[in-house]
């Protein structure tokens, strides 16, 4: 899972597989972080629960 | 501060988030997996220094050399001993699993005394004095012959000590259960004269004609048999196997000749007839035959001609002719007898008839043939000291020729025939035919002393149980026997300290003798069995103690051997199966189940096929042609004149039509869930059939019927 796990090898299989995995995790993490931060910002800026 | 709902919610979420990002979760997850890797209820074997000790296995007559691997004090594995003259590294599954006997928690752990229906633990001192007191009573009533004894075999110093005890006590009533060795001796006695035994040079024979001998099913010395059989491939030696069932031996043989059960003697005689008629015999050998060769020949040609025996035996007369011819013309032929393991019920007619084939082709004491040699004698006991009760007692007649006759007599008599019984290393309540009757007889004996490591069927009937060491804990001389071409004595050594409060059986009998005082005690003056063994084996002790094995004789025996054919010439009757039903139930010997009194080990039971034992049911083998209406693996009721059993059915093309096969060695009923209460003991379903003349129980099977249950 991580390069410090002893099964890890810098071969094509690991790079492709974990490349995809960390890429997906990255998108999800970044997306959620963005949403949460933006929501916090929106909350502080406006205070209405009306606009949609 | 007032905690409102919102701040409570916030605090809660904050706490959850805090814990989630803290290392607590990771730590707990990691710890829990480490816990699963070290569950306290999964044992961790203790490490220690590795050592190997050589010894000899005495679970069966095979007498194989073993190497015991130990970690510190504790034996952890039994393996075959490389270079040993009998087994050279190989080992059978029972020997390998031997430590399961050693550590078995259901062993008899201390001397036990029967109290009503249960046993109570007593000390060795109490046990010995109870036995001695009872025996003293018997002697005081001047009827020492009313002490009887049953042993598994009549070989080695422990058996000799028991016999010595009976002699000095004054009882002639000591018996052994039928073994291959006793059957070989009986055959030798009939054909060649007393005091001899027969062996087969299977390692060299180029044509082995086996009359049902399970050469790879535990016959003789099993590992040696496996080795000899395996070497056939390189030696291009042939094996023809004659028996009703495609046993492993038959399957491994070059040819399987199915024969109707119980007609092996007739088939052997038909082959003798062919050899005589075609003059294929060794004329030099036959010229020295005594007891009426011409009479025998006339009988054979008249009654046992192949054409007449084809119907009886189920073997075509042309096949009889061909096989007899092949046998006679082979360079080093040998005919082997002793169906199955060769122990248990056997007919002397059959044994002698087959052996006569050996005599006819003149292979006695020739390479690859049958060896006739004196019984192994290496023990030198000092003279017994006999008092008058003993000398008188020994003049009395034995209660029976063989053990089963004694039991019959006990069951028939209204007066006690036997006041006390010693049972050593034997389990007649399980191994003898009509096991229920044996139990009944034991119940009628007022005082039964069992020398046993396990609470087996017979020990359960005892009044006193003296727990003895297993072969891993004791010192003992183990002479080879059972048809082995070479004669060696091995030394079983105590590779493990006693696990429980047990003793060497030799020590137990010495203690009893000493407690009886007088002449008996004088005849047992050794400090211990270990001392006794050293002193009674002066010729071989050095070899035994240093090498672990002493070779008494090997190679081809020299000297001529007398052959007397009068037994056959008198045309003894062929034993018939008891009952009237159309099918015949026969026992199957299977290497993975010992047929002797000891139950299989848990490992051995685990290897048993589900076509032999399924759940707690015995599975019987039957040809699909015979099994009309029965389903494969379905339940059936098997009925013989002796009893009924619920079994499962295995439709097997390797079974002769008209025959039902049931494995021996199942159906033990004692307290060990891994090996007991599984299947049916076939000896409950078969009754003894005494062969007239020999007095042997020769029940090769019993008539039976089977129906869907």
């Amino acid at each position: 899972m991580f390069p410090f796990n002893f099964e890890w090898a810098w071969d094509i299989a690991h790079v492709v597989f974990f490349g995809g995995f960390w890429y997906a995790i990255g998108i999800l993490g970044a997306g959620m972080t963005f949403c949460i931060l933006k929501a916090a910002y929106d909350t502080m800026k406006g205070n209405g629960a009306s606009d949609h | 501060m007032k905690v409102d709902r919102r701040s409570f919610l916030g605090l809660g979420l904050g706490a959850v988030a805090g814990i989630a990002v803290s290392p607590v979760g990771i730590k707990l997850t990691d710890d829990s997996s480490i816990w699963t890797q070290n569950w306290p209820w999964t044992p961790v074997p203790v490490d220690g220094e590795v050592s190997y000790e050589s010894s000899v296995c005495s679970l069966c007559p095979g007498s194989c050399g073993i190497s015991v691997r130990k970690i510190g004090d504790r034996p952890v594995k039994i393996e075959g001993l490389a270079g040993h003259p009998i087994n050279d590294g190989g080992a059978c599954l029972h020997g390998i699993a031997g430590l399961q006997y050693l550590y078995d928690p259901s062993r008899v752990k201390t001397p036990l005394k029967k109290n009503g229906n249960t046993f109570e633990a007593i000390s060795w001192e109490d046990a010995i004095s109870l036995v001695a007191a009872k025996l003293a009573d018997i002697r005081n009533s001047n009827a020492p012959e009313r002490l009887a004894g049953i042993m598994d075999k009549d070989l080695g110093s422990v058996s000799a000590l028991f016999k010595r005890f009976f002699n000095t006590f004054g009882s002639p009533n000591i018996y052994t259960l039928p073994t291959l060795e006793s059957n070989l001796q009986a055959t030798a006695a009939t054909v060649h004269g007393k005091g001899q035994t027969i062996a087969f040079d299977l390692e060299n024979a180029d044509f082995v004609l086996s009359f049902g001998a399970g050469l790879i099913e535990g016959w003789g010395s099993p590992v040696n048999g496996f080795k000899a059989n395996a070497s056939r491939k390189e030696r291009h030696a042939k094996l023809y196997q004659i028996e009703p069932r495609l046993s492993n031996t038959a399957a491994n043989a070059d040819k399987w000749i199915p024969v109707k059960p119980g007609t092996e003697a007739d088939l052997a005689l038909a082959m003798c007839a062919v050899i005589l008629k075609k003059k294929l015999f060794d004329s030099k050998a036959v010229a020295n035959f005594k007891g009426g060769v011409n009479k025998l020949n006339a009988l054979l040609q008249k009654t046992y001609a192949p054409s007449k025996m084809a119907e009886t035996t189920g073997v075509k007369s042309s096949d009889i002719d061909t096989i007899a011819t092949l046998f006679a013309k082979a360079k080093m032929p040998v005919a082997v007898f002793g169906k199955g393991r060769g122990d248990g019920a056997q007919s002397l007619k059959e044994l002698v008839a087959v052996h006569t084939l050996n005599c006819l082709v003149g292979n006695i004491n020739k390479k690859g043939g049958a060896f006739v040699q004196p019984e192994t004698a290496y023990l030198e006991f000092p003279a017994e000291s006999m008092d008058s009760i003993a000398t008188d007692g020994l003049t009395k007649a034995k209660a029976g020729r063989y053990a089963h006759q004694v039991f019959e007599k006990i069951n028939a008599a209204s007066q006690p025939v036997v006041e006390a019984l010693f049972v050593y290393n034997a389990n007649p309540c399980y191994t003898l035919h009509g096991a229920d009757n044996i139990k009944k007889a034991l119940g009628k004996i007022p005082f039964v002393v069992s020398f046993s490591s396990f609470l087996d069927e017979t020990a359960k009937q005892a009044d006193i149980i003296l727990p003895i060491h297993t072969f891993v804990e004791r010192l003992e001389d183990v002479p080879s026997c059972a048809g082995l071409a070479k004669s060696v004595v091995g030394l079983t050594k105590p590779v493990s300290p006693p696990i429980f409060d047990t003793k060497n059986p030799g020590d137990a009998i010495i203690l009893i003798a000493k407690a009886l005082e007088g002449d008996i005690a004088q005849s047992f003056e050794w400090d211990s069995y270990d001392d006794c063994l050293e002193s009674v084996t002066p010729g071989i002790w050095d070899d035994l103690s240093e090498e672990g094995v002493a070779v008494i004789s090997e190679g081809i025996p020299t000297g001529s051997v007398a052959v007397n054919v009068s037994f056959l010439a008198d045309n003894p009757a062929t034993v018939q199966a008891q009952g009237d039903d159309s099918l015949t139930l026969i026992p199957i010997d299977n290497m993975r189940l010992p047929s002797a009194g000891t139950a299989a080990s848990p490992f051995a039971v685990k290897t048993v096929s589900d076509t032999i034992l399924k759940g707690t049911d015995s599975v019987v083998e039957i040809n699909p042609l015979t099994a009309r209406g029965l389903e494969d693996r379905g339940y059936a009721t098997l009925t013989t004149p002796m009893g009924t059993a619920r079994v499962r059915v295995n439709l097997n093309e390797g079974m002769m039509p008209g025959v039902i096969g049931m494995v021996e060695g199942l159906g033990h009923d004692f307290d060990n869930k891994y090996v007991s209460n599984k299947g049916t003991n076939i000896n409950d379903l078969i009754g003894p059939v005494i062969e007239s003349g020999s007095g042997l129980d020769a029940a090769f099977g019993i008539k039976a019927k089977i129906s869907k249950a």
Partner: protein
Amino acid sequence: MDSALIPEGAKRCSFPKFAIGIAIVGAVLLWGVYAMFLCWFKGLNQTNMNDYYGFALWIWADLAVIAVGGGAFFTGLLKYIFKVDELKNIINFAVIIGFICYSSALLILAIDIGQPLRGWFIFWHANVHSMLTEVAFCLSCYFAVLTIEFIPNILENRQVNRVPFFHHLAHNMHGVMAIFAATGAFLSFFHQGSLGGVAGVMFGRPFAVREGLLIWPWTFFLFTWSAAAFGPCFTLLVAKITETITGKKLVKDNVVHLLAKISGWMITTYIIAKIIDTIYWATVTIPSLGFKLSHFYTNNSFYGYWILITEVVLCGVVPGALLIIKSTRENPTLRLIAIVLGVIGVCLNRWVMVLQIMAVPVMSFDTWALYIPSWQEIATTILPVAYGIILIAITYRYLPVFPQEQELNSIEPATEAE
């Protein structure tokens, strides 16, 4: 009493009625939970699995719920990537079903493995060559995606939405949902596929093994395709069941027809591929390993050709045809038959690809192995069903799952149920 939580303008049954319904299903759930704890504490000896049946009922259930849960990713893909806008009216429901299916799948896996406390080794000590590793990674990640897709719907609950932060969060998440959906589709493609790959790579099992493209056997693509094809059937089926139980129309016909049509074409193309695959396997793959087709369908008391014909023809070709033909598609009864057959078909396919593989003897002297699950296995397999019913009931009651509900039921509310 819980009216404050119920979406504005929506009619729901009385709370006691709802509570009783939940209690009944909850009892079944508890039965399953009991069996689950038995399996965890006493071990898998509670099941009737054995060394021939290492994969059994659970793995089938696992594959089946993931297959029918495929409606979520495929509907999401169509909605957010291909901009099929009508589908916004069913996407919430598809996501909830997906969430239920995937959480159930993960739960089943947690029960199925012999060492649940070490289950995370599949991530930590991952063997990237194993299809199951791919399954585990994509499954967990996609479950995260489903959770993310589900969250905005939860945040739209009347009370929750009043909290400004949650309101904004829901709004923002809607804004970037296409990215999440794309990631979800990517992950789904691989885990649906790798579930198919689980069987297809077993080159020791002639019944399972398939040739393929690069490292992926054909079953990889067939599984993805079939999940995309039959997943919407299941979404429609559950929507239909929900409509029946609530007695309300919840989704407009044009949405249903559209999804059914897409499903129909997917099924049809899938089944053509499946037939080609089966023929190739039967005539090229297995003969090269020494097997005849009949080996896999005869000499046992259960698996016959019937299972192949049922899966491919009755539950594949037939629903495909029914759904691509306009007249049958728009006939409610025939459409229902088609989606039911479709759901059965995909479940049967997963059954065959798990259990029949285990049953078929491979060594010439081996025998067929059949097995009957223990009650613990059955209870734990029903557990997700009970859990799903409860979750749908709760979400339906408290969340605005169906955007068209008010429009379709504005005049006169029909009889209510949970």
